[in-house]
């Protein structure tokens, strides 16, 4: 789907992307403090057995997020 902005919750295991921006101010601050900055490479690793939360790699380490939190990170890929 070219041209349609995508977010991390829509990624598939193994998929990579670049952080483009955030849709939630409150969460964006926490994410950025942990190194998830615009321009950073992000990789979707795997989902928890029940599909939520998910595990991503960003800034050289692994982070777990709930799907609703992942949906606030828009990406380019």
């Amino acid at each position, binding site marked *: 789907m070219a041209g349609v902005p995508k977010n991390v919750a829509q990624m598939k295991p193994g998929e990579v992307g670049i952080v483009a921006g955030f849709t939630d101010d409150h969460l964006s601050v926490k994410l950025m403090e942990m190194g998830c900055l615009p321009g950073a490479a992000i990789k979707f690793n795997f989902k928890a057995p029940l599909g939520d*939360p998910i595990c991503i790699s960003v800034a*050289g380490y692994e982070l*777990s997020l709930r799907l609703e939190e992942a949906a606030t990170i828009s990406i380019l890929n």
Partner: protein
Amino acid sequence: MSATRRTKIALVGNPNAGKSSLFNQLTGLNQKIGNFPGITVEKKSGWCTLPVLNSTVDLPTAETVEIVDFPGTYSIYPRSLDERIVSELLLDHHSPETPDKVVVVADASNLKRNLLLLTQIVDIGLPTILVLNMMDLVAKAGLSYDFTKLSQKLGVPVIPVNARQGVGIDELKRLLATPLEAPKTRIFPVWEQAQKPVKELRDTLGVDNDYEAYLFLEQPLSLGFLSKERKATVDAIRTKHDFFPGKFQGAETIQRYSYIQELLNDVTLQSPADEGAWKSYSRRIDNILTHKVWGYASFFGILFLIFQAIFAWASWPMDQIDALFAFISGYLKEILPDGPLTSLVADGIVPGIGGIVIFVPQIAILFAFIAILEESGYMARVVFLMDKIMRKFGLNGRSVVPLVSGVACAIPAIMATRTIDNWKERIITIMVTPLVSCSARLPIFTILIALIVPDEKVIGIFNMQGLALMGLYLLGFVAALGSAWVMKLFINLKEKSYLIMELPTYRVPKWSNVGFTIVEKTKAFVLEAGKVILAISIILWVLASYGPGDRLERAEETIARQTEGQNISDEHREDMVASYKLENSYAGVIGKAIEPAIKPLGYDWKIGIALITSFAAREVFVGTIATIYSIGSSGEDDNTIKTRMREEVNPETGGPRFTPAVGFSLLVFYTFAMQCMSTLAVVYRETKGWRWPMIQLTYMTVLAYVSAFVVFTILS
């Protein structure tokens, strides 16, 4: 600085940066847990003797400094109660708790993220040292840095260490012994838009530097140390300049990271070609431990192992402790003259202390497991696995740890809820944790089950009594989740819950860290819970030893008169006296007074006395039953109590007192009832008021009463 004040050194850093290892390396066993004055956050501190640098100067002896281990945090902007202490103490430059030096521990294999906090602390302007930890991982990953340049650019000393192996600790100690100036570097210039309020604040309140004043504006919740008037001034300045908390936090973070990126470009000599081997190793473990089937299977396997350990391995030391305190009590009665003081010591204080110490084996084993799971990185995976399920009940993945810990004791479990950053989820976790069957319920369960459930096997392998016990534990868990779900509907959500959590790389636990955790938590339990339990046991002793009128003084006479001419051993007569005394004591009077209320549950006044005495600590139930049925002198030997309980007759029916209906009614009552003063005290401390502990006491008592009533009515 006064001469009596010891130099304080604060350890701060990201979670998983190896702060605890460094703390343990610096302090060894010279640690203690206390509280920061005025705030209910645990203060973990220890002492470290620094080397004498130059014996010719005026320091004749080595200096001992206090090292304070702060909760791990990613930034000076706190996101949980635990983390707030970091900003609060770094902002308050006039408290006796203010650190003289700040040691920032950074995971050097992921320097970028770890430097964010450092740049903030440098800007606050406290003397700072940057410790680059995990240098072994840096080497393995093929990274290398120019430390001298890093130190020059940041304006703080930089020292590489490997805290797990103890490499570089001596150098760090030497550095700590050296006088250190506050860094002159200013990394983040306060925004132009913020300069006016910042200047006004500095002028009116006399705040030391710009960034500190700026944080006063950004973080109103971290200003607990300010007087009301000063806080009002800050609020007024904030309103006047249209500033709101967190206004520039995002922009500040971006600006700091761009500074850090430039800095790293400058000081990195060599970058790794690919991700180190240790990461893919970690991923392979995750393929199993977070797998749909194997993930949950291993989680329940580990839970089973913990339960097994708490109940099977702890029983031997617990029996020994029990016997030891019974011996001390008996011995004191023999050597001390008869009188109320001896009785207070032998029947009140010694068994009270014994009642605390007996839980030490279980608490120690539980915390050994929790420490291993934390150290290895598995705990974060438990949160990851359980978050979705727990959220349905108004809880959080992080609630799993307190709920599991509750199996040993609700007190440390409730203290463990501090890692839950969402207020609502934390309150609900605190409220339902005491429903999880703790080890103090075990003696009651075992004795009642032995009394009413036949010791037979079903389908050849399962022991009925064992199944009944497991059923009660399940009942507790289900009740905890059910109550959480109900509370979710009643407690209004103020803030949004979020998870965002690091999944650390798996590591082999460092065993000395596990050991330190066991010692620290056990000590905290004995001291914290101990105070309350001891006080309560004294009150109960008074209630059980004194009564209205002079019937208690005449107990011996009365029993002697009653048993005149009968062939009764002295021991039995003494037991009858004890029973008569209890019946006529204040506890007995209250027991009789509440009989109408507990009759619907199938209890008589004797059980009523046990309910009263065990109100403060449920484990007292068995001991009271022993006394009331005149078998006190045989100690708490299970068989004696069981036989005696089986023989007890219900005068109304002529049948046995402890029918299955009464037994199950009692079991259910003790599964749900609060019956633990120490837990209430901890909830009071954690929620800073009586409101929540009172709600908790009420709902648990109502739940216990109604359920016991239903069970009794159905079964009888």
